[in-house]
């Protein structure tokens, strides 16, 4: 078994085996996270920069905790005081970071392709922590981990992704990742929230009717309605959206007994799901996803940074 990746940006460059290696490793880190001493010395002496060019408290916290639990030295770089705000280009910022002698950069940026630009100007490994509407691979991996933990397998599962597909960076990684591991993907949303040619991401079908799809699904993945991205009003009101696409107590009876509900967070109660579903003790795995985020990010950092060739271990 080998893991030959320096960066984690484009999930389609990862094989089924690579993804399972990450999930298995994450499971080993889960054992660490359950201990009283939730820390291992693995990344002692490694320097990791969390370059967050757009705010994201959750993802950054999750990475930060993962880095700390691996004993890496981590630095948060970004926020409202970023040099990019002061007019410095992304490339100049990266070259500045290089002078700190860094080993890995976690990049969050509102522009698609920013992590790739970073790889071209640093010897360090790069993890995409969300770039514009393009991708968010660690989110996809933590979703897979959560689903895998629950079902014990991924191949053949029927996953429905509901909501704002077109503005979702999660979908850019999650849909291809689900395909790689052999799951079946249905997208459910109004036409205004579905991108052109969703099949290129790996979507098996698109539906406008949640009630019609719900009875077949093993996993109902509810996307956040990002109010900040709703310029041009893709639907008439949150009320109508909730009526048509909200996962509610009333709709639960359509679900398979073993079906689960995922959500990348933060949730909008009363919009994409109601409190009954968000807090459902058996079905809702939303908090498991948050926990999985730490384990999966520890695994990704471990696998990318290990070995003499900066991740090219054999």
């Amino acid at each position, binding site marked *: *078994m080998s893991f030959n990746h320096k960066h984690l940006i484009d999930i389609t460059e990862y094989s089924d085996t690579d993804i399972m290696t990450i999930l*298995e490793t994450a499971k*080993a880190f889960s*054992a660490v996270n359950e201990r009283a001493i939730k820390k291992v010395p693995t*990344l002692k002496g490694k320097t990791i920069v969390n370059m967050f060019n757009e705010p994201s408290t959750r993802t950054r916290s999750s990475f930060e905790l993962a880095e700390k639990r*691996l004993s890496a030295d981590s630095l948060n770089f970004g926020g409202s005081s970023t040099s990019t705000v002061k007019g410095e280009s992304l490339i100049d910022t990266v070259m500045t970071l290089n002078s700190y002698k860094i080993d890995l950069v976690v990049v969050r940026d509102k522009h698609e392709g920013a992590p790739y630009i970073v790889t071209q100007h640093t010897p360090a490994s790069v993890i995409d922590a969300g770039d514009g509407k393009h991708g968010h691979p660690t989110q996809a991996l933590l979703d897979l981990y959560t689903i895998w933990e629950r079902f014990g397998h991924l191949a053949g599962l029927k996953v429905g992704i509901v909501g704002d597909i077109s503005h979702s960076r999660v979908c850019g990684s999650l849909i291809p990742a689900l395909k790689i591991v052999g799951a079946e993907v249905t997208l459910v949303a109004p036409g205004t929230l579905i991108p052109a040619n969703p099949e290129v991401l790996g979507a098996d079908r698109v539906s406008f009717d949640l009630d019609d799809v719900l009875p077949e699904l093993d996993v109902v993945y509810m996307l956040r309605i990002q109010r900040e991205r709703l310029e041009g009003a893709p639907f008439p009101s949150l009320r109508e959206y909730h009526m048509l696409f909200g996962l509610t107590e009333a709709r639960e009876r359509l679900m398979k007994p073993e079906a689960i509900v995922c959500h990348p967070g933060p949730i909008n109660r009363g919009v994409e799901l109601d409190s009954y579903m968000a807090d459902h003790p058996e079905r809702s795995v939303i908090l498991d996803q948050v926990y999985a985020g730490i384990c999966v990010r520890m695994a990704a950092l471990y*696998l990318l940074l*290990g070995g003499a060739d900066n991740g090219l271990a054999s």
Partner: protein
Amino acid sequence: MAETPKAIIMDEIAISRAMTRIAHEILERNEGCDNLALVGIVTRGDLLAKELCDRIEEIEGVRLPLGSLDISFYRDDFGVSIAPEVHASRIPFDVDGKRIVLVDDVLYTGRTIRAALDALMDMGRPSRIELAVLVDRGHRELPICPDFVGKNVPSSHEENVRLYLKDVDGRSSVEITDVSQGSRAGSAPLGGDAR
């Protein structure tokens, strides 16, 4: 690529005898099973630890708490190479105050044991840790000394000393092979040499 053994230094019977003797020695040294627990280092030490656990149960009629330890996250050669196959450590008991016998297959540089000690310490505070190994091949790079040894085997750096176990490898033996070019000295991969 299968390695041709230069010599078989322990066969199944020799291994079995050594294990029985170590089981007795552990009981003797610790004056019974009180507060005792076994922790094997993956991926062969855990199997030996289970074997010892069975022997001790046969002798004393007591089933000792048994754990397995993966030391991947504690290795000192992380920057050189990593084992992508990481197993979760399973220590299903509280290590605080326990007398723990750490079990490994082949003791060589001592670096694995150093890592295992750190890993154990991160799980709590055992009252005492002892070390049992099936083979001690010398060449220590750290001040580590086993408490229980199946067999001392003088070896050279150019050689691998590997344990194979029936359950996972189809045969039980300790073999010496030459280190093939480009590969590292260390435990045999599970399921035989074919990778």
